[in-house]
């Protein structure tokens, strides 16, 4: 690859939404949203319940496809490719775009099996490769030290914070380039929350992370850019420091200062 091509690629947004509208039957959940998300950044989506932030996040790995009555207009591009084109394989897309949910959801299997699961699904059968990828993913998720001597222990025996880090390891094992997180710490205590936040910060150098959070301070602490959603619209989207110190829109200011929502 020439430097010129490389430079051009670096300048492209990792994720790009163009004039996106989403409907669930007659209800319009997302109203004409366009936004770019750059590589190796953490982007936070904030807004009151029902504002459309989780719906918008789930567009990036086509998680809304299964919702009854779902219909989308516009384009979502990842690495400049429209992921809603008919020829796109959703399974391939989800290898590239991992997801961590609000409640830790490990499989009722061992720690090892949880992390290895995605690799096996991908058809990797070489034990040495799987072992290496499990170890790397657990190290990246800051769980290796605690789990290395108990890899065969049930994942359900881990604490909530450990389970969430296991779910992050499971996501990382398949080597995605984007990680979506939907309120990943809302069920965790402050210590576990801090560990996940530190982890997000470390992962940023290798991944593009998009996180939905109800915790305004968390958005301020970990994200580079923040988008404020309200009634399906993207009201304001900019550098997190600017958004929290000098929001331009009154709705944003009222929301982040706790005056509504």
């Amino acid at each position, binding site marked *: 690859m020439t430097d010129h091509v490389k430079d051009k690629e670096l300048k492209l947004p990792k994720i790009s939404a163009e004039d996106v509208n989403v409907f669930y039957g007659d209800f319009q959940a997302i109203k004409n949203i366009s936004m770019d998300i750059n590589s190796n950044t953490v982007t936070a989506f904030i807004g009151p319940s029902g504002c459309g932030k989780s719906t918008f996040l789930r567009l990036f790995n086509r998680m809304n496809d299964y919702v009854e009555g779902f219909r989308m207009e516009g384009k979502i591009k990842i690495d400049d490719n429209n992921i809603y084109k008919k020829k796109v394989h959703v399974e391939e897309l989800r290898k590239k775009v991992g997801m961590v949910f609000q409640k830790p959801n490990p499989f009722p299997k061992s720690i090892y099996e949880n992390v290895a699961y995605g690799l096996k699904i991908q058809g990797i059968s070489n034990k040495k490769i799987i072992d290496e990828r499990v170890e790397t993913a657990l190290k990246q998720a800051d769980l290796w030290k605690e789990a290395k001597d108990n890899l065969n222990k049930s994942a359900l025996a881990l604490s909530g914070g450990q389970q969430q880090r296991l779910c992050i390891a499971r996501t990382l094992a398949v080597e995605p380039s984007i990680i979506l997180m939907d309120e990943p710490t809302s069920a965790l205590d402050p210590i576990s929350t801090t560990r996940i936040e530190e982890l997000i910060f470390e992962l940023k150098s290798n991944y593009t992370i998009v996180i939905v959070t109800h915790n*305004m*301070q968390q958005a*301020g602490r970990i994200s580079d850019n923040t988008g404020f959603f309200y009634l399906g619209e993207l009201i304001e989207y900019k550098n997190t420091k600017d958004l*929290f*110190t*000098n*929001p331009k829109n009154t709705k944003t*200011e009222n929301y*982040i*200062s*706790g*005056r509504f929502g």
Partner: protein
Amino acid sequence: MTNLDIELKLLKEAIIEMTDLVTNQVVNANEAFLSMDTDLAYEIQHNEQKINALELSIDRDCEHILALFNPVASDLRFVLAVLKSNADLERIGDYTYAIAGYVIEHNKSINKELIEASQIIAMFDTAISMLRDIKIAFETEDVKLAKKVYRKDADLNMINKQAADIISKFLEKDGTLTTEALYLFSTIRKLERVGDHVKNMVEVLIFYVKAKVLKHKDIKDKKK
């Protein structure tokens, strides 16, 4: 009204009370210095304790709001503006304490011609009007009025700049005026500093209301 709104309202009332107290100290310092009223000078020094106590109380309130309510955006800028203005007001209070000290030490009226030529009366008047106006600007978030206050500081700087020449010419003519000339010159210097502190308050008020930083920018930028 949220709990944070209530706390911010109380904080605003407190900083306005602080501005009133300090303005009153400058008014009294003016009177005490020009009439060499030692009783009033002692009263100023006594009132300094109230200012120090209120300064600590406002600092504590700001600390509590920051720790307990995590304010953001204009709420955060308001708390920071109060915190900084509080320190400026306390310093102005210190200057009035020092001027009162000169009155107590000197305790003799100062040559009227020297007073007139030095323009110290105009300085006191300007400093007092700056304080009164910044209080109104803070109460009403009036950026236009705040900018007027800002420009008045130039008048104080000008008088201060000319003072050394004017006073030294008087001393060349009459060396017996040395002591009172020194007290006068020191008071002029303190009033010039009062202007600087009120100017700081203008900067933080504009930072609060407009989210614009005026510090360390030249005048052209500030006019924008």
